[in-house]
């Protein structure tokens, strides 16, 4: 299964081969600012199965010191995937097709927007899930 994604103006497109590994909702203040949304939904895949298929020259990166890069289309401003080493974070809202996968849990619920209530039964971590914290320490 190939999953396709693109920005609003269609200038930038990408695809991922095969199944996606994980979908999560991130409520951190930086995601909320970058997306102008209550939270951002990310889908993760191995970088080796990801490729840009159009408009790579239209991609702008924003990478403040010490933080991972965020990318967007410089024509329409749509948020685009960002590669972190051997993983790529796709923004679920930019996918053209149903990715099949569904959100598994929430992260950074401790800093969620005041105007948004989490109304589902998924696990809501205050920050990163404990297993990620252990991996990074």
């Amino acid at each position, binding site marked *: 299964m190939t999953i396709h994604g693109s920005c609003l103006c269609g200038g930038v497109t990408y695809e991922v081969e095969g199944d996606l590994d994980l979908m999560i909702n991130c409520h951190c203040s930086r995601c909320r600012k970058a997306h102008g949304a209550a939270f951002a939904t990310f889908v993760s895949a191995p970088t080796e199965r990801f490729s840009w298929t159009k408009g790579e020259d239209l991609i702008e990166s924003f990478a403040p010191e010490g933080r991972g890069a965020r990318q*967007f289309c*410089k024509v329409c401003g749509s*948020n685009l995937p960002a590669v972190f080493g051997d993983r790529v974070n796709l*923004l679920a*809202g930019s996918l053209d097709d149903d990715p099949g996968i569904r*959100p598994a849990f929430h992260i950074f619920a401790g800093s969620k927007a005041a105007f948004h209530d989490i109304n589902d039964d998924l696990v809501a971590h205050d920050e990163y899930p404990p297993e990620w914290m252990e991996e990074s320490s």
Partner: protein
Amino acid sequence: MTIHGSCLCGGVAYEAEGPVETMNHCHCSRCRKAHGAAFVTFAWVPADRFQWTKGEELIQAFAGLSPFPRRFCRICGGNLPTIMGDQVKMPAGSLDEDPGARPSFHMFVGSKAAFHEINDDLVAHNEYPPELMEKSEE
């Protein structure tokens, strides 16, 4: 009450004199693409109570098929408010503070993302709410 907002890098800032008149969730495919999110929450104020306070020269606009261009910061890509005639819709995620208002309805749930389920009790319109349809035909 003054409501403040800004992009991720802080280059662009704005403020609106409250209260927010309406807050709603939009699930349309264009909002999902532009924001890369499951849906977008907007807070609405009259345009005469809104102003940019910093970095107007950093704002990039994209109209596409819409008469009202979407705006974003050309440095960080943060989504910014859209001026729609005498109303401004502010992406709630770009607000710096609790705007006080809470979402009152969903729109364009007829085209919502397959991966997202709506789990609240708010009214969910398939497209625009009927009262907005009437307004736009006036």
